[in-house]
């Protein structure tokens, strides 16, 4: 019943742009394919998922190897998209620490992303620092911003925390937009230099891709290590049951602070990479939608799962590119996709354990 209702809903949604006829076709189409599926399942017994023992180590090695040869296989335009995917993976790994591991619903992560990007932009253009000397300062600033937000926010739980962090995200965006003398307001900051390695400018897309890929690997490695440590377990226990965590001797306040500043740290790194990739930053890149987008990534991939986060970012960045020909409908497709996920696989694509 749920499934039939859902098909009907899909068809209704498609009516505005496909017409009544198109919607009806879609409805019939889905009904028929579902009918065929049921029939086949009935005839051949329950269609089982293939129980192939997954060698995760081999799989991830293959994935990394593929990522390394990728730029040789695709056009420059797609290398550009791949860089964006990598930046979002770093950002999503950061959000995952806060939302996925510690269970603090944070809807203002674009703020840390923005602080990272603007720190990098200002330090390099105003103070003439290079990318590498600006990076530690940038990371310090964003981690501090994470700590500062934690003070008022961590007195709250659940929905209330979400609202406060949402507000925080908006405050940062508005400050970036209106503090003309420093951030140049909506005009943004341009001419952000590319990073140099050993006197060699990383301006070529392919080189930049390898730089960002390197950072992704480092980030994934570090986050994975921390996840399987005492600190990671403490975060998970806070997500599961805060009262019980405290009774187990975990200083929940301290670990929430740690989660927020550690998450902000990665968002800052993503921001710095974004700024030096684009050579330009403006406040509109760090809107509320950006925060929601990243939370969607980790929910789609599977909350708390590192491979899930990577897959989620991959899908959500690639999807709009793949659907570029259907400009008008891609947000709709995204929405339908997310609703589908919530109905049929609420735990995300890759589940922990």
């Amino acid at each position, binding site marked *: 019943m749920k499934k039939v209702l859902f098909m009907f809903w899909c068809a209704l949604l498609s009516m505005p742009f496909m017409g009544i006829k198109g919607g009806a076709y879609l409805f019939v189409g889905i009904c028929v394919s579902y009918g065929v599926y049921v029939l086949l399942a009935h005839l051949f017994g329950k269609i089982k998922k293939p129980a192939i023992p997954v060698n995760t180590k081999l799989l991830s090695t293959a994935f990394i190897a593929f990522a390394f040869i990728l730029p040789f296989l695709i056009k420059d335009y797609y290398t550009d998209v791949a860089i964006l995917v990598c930046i979002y993976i770093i950002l999503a790994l950061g959000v995952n620490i806060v939302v996925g591991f510690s269970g603090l619903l944070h809807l203002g992560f674009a703020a840390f992303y923005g602080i990272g990007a603007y720190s990098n932009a200002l330090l390099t253009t105003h103070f003439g620092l290079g990318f590498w000397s600006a990076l530690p300062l940038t990371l310090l600033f964003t981690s501090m911003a994470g700590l500062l937000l934690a003070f008022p926010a961590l007195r709250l739980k659940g929905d209330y925390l979400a609202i406060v962090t949402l507000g925080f995200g908006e405050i940062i965006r508005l400050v970036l937009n209106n503090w003309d003398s420093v951030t140049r307001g909506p005009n943004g900051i341009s001419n952000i230099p590319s990073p140099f390695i050993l006197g060699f400018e990383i301006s070529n897309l392919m080189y930049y891709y390898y730089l960002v890929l390197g950072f992704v690997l480092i980030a994934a490695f*570090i986050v994975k*290590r*921390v996840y*399987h*440590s*005492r*600190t*990671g*377990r*403490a975060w*998970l*226990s806070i997500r*599961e*049951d805060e*009262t*019980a*965590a*405290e*009774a*187990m*001797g*975990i*200083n*929940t306040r301290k670990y929430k602070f*740690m989660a927020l500043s*550690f998450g902000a740290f990665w968002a800052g790194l993503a921001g710095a990479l974004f700024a030096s990739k684009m050579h330009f930053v403006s406040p509109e890149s760090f809107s509320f939608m950006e925060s929601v987008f990243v939370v969607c990534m980790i929910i789609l991939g599977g909350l708390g799962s590192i491979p899930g986060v990577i897959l989620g970012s991959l899908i959500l960045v690639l999807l709009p590119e793949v659907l570029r020909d259907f400009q008008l409908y891609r947000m709709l497709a995204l929405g339908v996709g997310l609703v589908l996920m919530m109905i049929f696989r609420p735990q995300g694509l890759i589940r*922990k*354990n």
Partner: protein
Amino acid sequence: MILEVRDLTKIFGGLKAIEEISFKVKRGIILSIIGPNGAGKTTLFNCLTGVLPSTKGHVLFEDEDITQRRPYEITEKGIARTFQNIRVFNSMTVLENVMIGQHSRSREGLLTAVLGTKKFQREEDEIRSKALEYLEFTGIQDYAATLAENLPYGDQKRLEIARALATEPELLLLDEPAAGMNPQETMALMELIKKIREWGKTVIIIEHDMKVVMGISDWIIVLDHGVKIAEGTPNEIQNNPYVIEAYLGKEEVDLLS
């Protein structure tokens, strides 16, 4: 004396949940706290463990005042507890649950974890092997890799005890450990609690099952309407007129006599 409570009072708005309760607990005994529903037993536990701040009075653990401490500090000092409504970490494995109990007895932080130093590895191995020991002690070692939410009810209660023991407490507070258990499970639980006492730990339990209370307690405290109305050995408590009155009501007692 491992624990001393002096005039402990907790007021919620206009309701005195517990009122000027004082008692002392000898080391190495099993103490039961009984009383009708709403007598303030769980509130007392929450005040002892810092989950709720007490309004007045003092709690001394090993001669140290721990009254206004945060729960995690009290756990570090050596008091562990279980909860009346099971509060295991559902989507983590049984082993991970118990490993979290070792939190305050270990210290490696972010940096050594990232670098994967020898010291970190050694501590991690130690936490794991100790956790396995506690699982074996409570008899749920076969479930080590199971998600806690998939455990049967009785074993979830055992897991809570294993997790509390993993914090290496001197004093263990169990809030209705036998609630919802069948007679066999209850018997096994009584054995387990006795084993914990033999191990040299002090245990305070809140329990409604009188067979359990009379069977294992060395000392009993009776609460009613937030006030301590009696304390003594199981024998003394069974014959105490105030206790009979609290449980059966005044009229019934009059009728009986």
